[in-house]
């Protein structure tokens, strides 16, 4: 060490930095992607807000749709319908999705071919176009089960549509809970179900909440399957029960944009703002849940 310096080293190497062009390049690319995403969002938001500004007033949620008088028309039935459909969809798909995920993660033996096949199919179902679910809902739920073109049919169909997303997200969340926690619980004489209910699920809630946000956000914007399932465009009353007919915002918006009068187009933009608002409100609930349950390992 203190002897003569190695031949190939200079006596006192400089600490000056080398030229590393890739580092700033990558950082720049990351920032550019972020900027692009934010830019799109801002443009979209400002576009719909300016377009719909003239009709963003209480008439929108106090009145029902009117085909003849755009200045009197509102979207109350669609707003209420959307809230109903989303609440019911959540009520159906969250428990079923989470329970399926628990089964697949905690009980199923992954070395069995049928379990692997179920897994593969769930992945594939997540990619099936929504109109296919509409046809399924129409054929099996509306006609086969004879539930008709009702809120219930719509919610069940949307639940099927987003179920794969919920299952996949919940499985990821459950898998992320360290095995040492399960072992600790079982070693104390807890049953497998106690371990899941008291340790695994609470720890997985943040991840599950993220999946539910994604799933319900998709469901709330879906118009295609509901067109088949009879979300009628002109409904002048709120649904009073799950077997009522209904409409939802995407359908109402779609309908208004088809009208020739410019006033209806303004109305459509205003309704988009309402739809985005409902989406944000829903997501903030999920984010609140996620933060409340966030754990540090």
């Amino acid at each position, binding site marked *: 060490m203190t002897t003569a310096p190695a031949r190939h080293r200079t006596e006192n190497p400089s600490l000056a930095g080398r030229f590393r062009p890739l580092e700033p390049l990558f950082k720049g690319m990351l920032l550019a992607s972020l900027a692009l995403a934010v830019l799109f969002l801002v443009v979209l938001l400002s576009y719909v807000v300016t377009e719909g500004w003239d009709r963003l007033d209480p008439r929108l949620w106090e009145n029902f749709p009117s085909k003849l008088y755009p200045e009197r028309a509102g979207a109350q039935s669609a707003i209420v319908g959307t809230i109903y459909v989303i609440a019911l969809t959540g009520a159906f798909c969250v428990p079923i999705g989470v329970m399926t995920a628990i089964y697949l993660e905690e009980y199923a*033996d992954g*070395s069995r071919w049928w379990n692997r096949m179920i897994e593969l199919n769930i992945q594939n179902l997540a990619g099936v176009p929504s109109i296919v679910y509409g046809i399924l809902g129409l054929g099996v739920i509306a006609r086969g089960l004879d539930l008709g073109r009702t809120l219930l049919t719509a919610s069940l169909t949307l639940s099927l549509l987003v179920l794969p997303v919920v299952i996949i997200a919940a499985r990821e969340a459950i898998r992320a809970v*360290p095995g*040492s*926690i*399960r*072992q*600790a*619980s*079982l*070693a*104390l*004489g*807890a*049953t497998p179900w*106690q371990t899941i209910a*008291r*340790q695994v699920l609470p*720890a997985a809630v943040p991840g599950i909440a993220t999946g539910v946000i994604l799933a319900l956000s998709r469901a709330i914007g879906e118009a295609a399957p509901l067109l088949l399932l009879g979300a009628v465009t002109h409904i002048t009353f709120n649904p009073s029960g799950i077997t009522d007919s209904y409409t939802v915002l995407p359908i109402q918006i779609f309908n208004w944009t088809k009208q020739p009068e410019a006033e209806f187009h303004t109305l459509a933009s205003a309704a988009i703002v309402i739809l985005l608002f409902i989406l944000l409100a829903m997501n903030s609930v999920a984010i609140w849940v996620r933060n409340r349950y966030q*754990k*540090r*390992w």
Partner: protein
Amino acid sequence: MTTTSSRLSTSQGVPVTGRPGGAGPVQPTVVNDAVEGPFDLVDTVFEVADVSVFYGDYEAVRNVDMKIGKRRITAMIGPSGCGKSTLLRCFNRMNDLIPGTRLGGKITFHGEDLYGDHVDPIEVRRRIGMVFQKPNPFPKSIYDNIAYGPRVNGVKRGLDDLVEEALVGAALWDEVKDKLKQNALALSGGQQQRLCIARTIAVKPEVILMDEPCSALDPIATAKIEDLMQNLTRDYTIVIVTHNMQQAARVSHRTAFFTADVDREGVRHGRLVEYDETSKLFTTPSDERTEAYITGRFG
């Protein structure tokens, strides 16, 4: 460290003749050779008869025979990969959780076949607790960590007392009594491990299995746990896996030395080489492989 005498006195009032001199190659501090009477006089908790453990087709542990004495500390030592943890997990059926695990031979617990058809592994784990290598407190308060075991076992009343008792038993009470509602993950590693011990004794098991409980801890925290183990032998039977020979020598009454034999196909199987009173195993081992290991020539 400083508690040699108290360690000795905790062991069931068996006459203590004093500390042996620093014979033996690794450990000058065998404290417990005199504590142990002839093994036949100690009640047997576990009897392991010709046990082999398989992971699928792989036989990780082969033909082990040993008895584990009541309210004794039994240490299992040996190079890593020789099946110590595997065998330890068989004692409370934690191996059931690993798919494809199979046990050959027989383990009895107070004469009852631990793997008998009528045996409920949940009940087994209530009676035989386990402390893991890496402290694994639940991400909950200290109180809830300790109360978890009693709660899942249906205890609803008297939890406060149980929690205090367990924390006192694990020598942690004084350090945490003012912050029972605090998250257990805020504790230091050594405190977390004592919390895990407290959590285990809150269920009032008969046996505590420990799998390298100190390997993630610093020497001071290790010393505290070793003292604690000595105190726990008043009420509990302890089986500890350690790859630290000094630790085995310091704390245990009996030591089992395992190693991995390579068979003709080149597959390694864990074997029990020698099982004896700790003082004897470390001073006058009867197998040359044991001697090689404890003198540091191998492993």
